[in-house]
């Protein structure tokens, strides 16, 4: 899968998984911070996203602190997935 395609798919999955009904996936910028400002996600969302990556891409993130770095933006998530995906 091309990186651009992966990012597009990720945006849709994030919106759907976190029930961000007011957000249009296409409006999320690749380097936009997902937490704090930007999308405004919180610590519960970060755990939800770790589960998402596990279920969809077979990526196993054990330490939630490490997770927060990986989940900074769509770019960082995509980069981590491309390197570690098992499905």
């Amino acid at each position, binding site marked *: 899968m091309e990186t651009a395609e992966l990012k597009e798919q990720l945006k849709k999955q994030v919106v759907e998984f976190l029930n*961000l009904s007011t957000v249009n996936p296409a409006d999320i910028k690749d380097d936009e911070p997902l937490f704090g400002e930007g999308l405004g996600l919180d610590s519960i969302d970060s755990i939800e996203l770790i589960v998402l990556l596990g279920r969809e891409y077979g990526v196993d993130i054990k330490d939630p602190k490490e997770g927060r770095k990986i989940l900074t933006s769509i770019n960082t998530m995509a980069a981590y997935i491309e390197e570690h995906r098992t499905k």
Partner: protein
Amino acid sequence: MYIHQTYCISAQQDLLQDDIEQINEPIDKKLLAIEPSYEKIPPGILRRMGKSIRMGVGAALPLISETKVDGIILGSANAGMDDCVKFLNQMVQYEEGQLTPGSFVQSTGNVIAGQLGLITKNKGYNITHIHLGLAFENALLDAMMQLNANASNSYLVGGVDEISPFHYNIETLAGSYKSEDISNKKLYESDSPGCVVGEGATMFIVNNSADGAIAKVKAISSLHSSDLDLVQQQLKSFLQKNLAEGETIDLFLSGENGDNRTLPFYQAVESIAGEDTAIVRYKHMTGDFATASALGLWYACQFLKNQSLPGHMLKRQSSKAAFSNILIYNNFKGVQHSFVLVSAN
């Protein structure tokens, strides 16, 4: 304790409707709440909320987003139940694997009061009473006691419950609901077991100030029993204790719900209410659920405010031109009984 503001979300419009033809009918045997657009709930928080949480927070925010209260006191039998089973289903589906915590965090019974504290930054008294058909009555009683200890405070008091699909399945299996389809207009004529299920959220602002109040909550009492005589006996002593010499009940607001198993209790209470007491019913509009009596109190406030009674709510008229004392009696599943005495100031 005085009620100053009210807000409710139920299967009907939030005003007294005179015309029964305008009353929403059950859909698929359920009286589903008409939900507003929840503009006051931040979208980032709204996205995670199940229906009861949404309704509870959505009914409370119009009252407390601008007016500060000193505490949040809620009654809800099953808030969080929907998320609880969602989490359970996830647990079974993924065989206890990696699970998303969102629904677990929303599954605790105190979630609505907690969210309200969070959204309105209210660090005061915060509690959730979950004692099924007396959850709201305990919340009311709690507010009264808080006001006895802190006379100048104001509190948010409310009752919330939803028809979650899972809870509906459990109660259907338990035989709580009518098996036949029934119109609101025929509810009280149906001589069959079960009620029509409803849902809703009702919120009140209460304090000790009589100034400009809609109603005064004079007294509350509750009882667990399936003994008809004991219920009558308790009501008599409740009235004796809380009505002054010569004072009578002007209006009896009955929680009659069309279930022929609990009807004898309502009839027994009617017989004590006095001959010139009007009898009024509301559950053909709201349906029944554990905290439906909060909507009952909301109707009592409307009656006192408007001094009018819609014809379709009347079971028996009285000759009185105006009314002040209202007795609300509710019976949940034949075991949990509550008496609430309300008056115009």
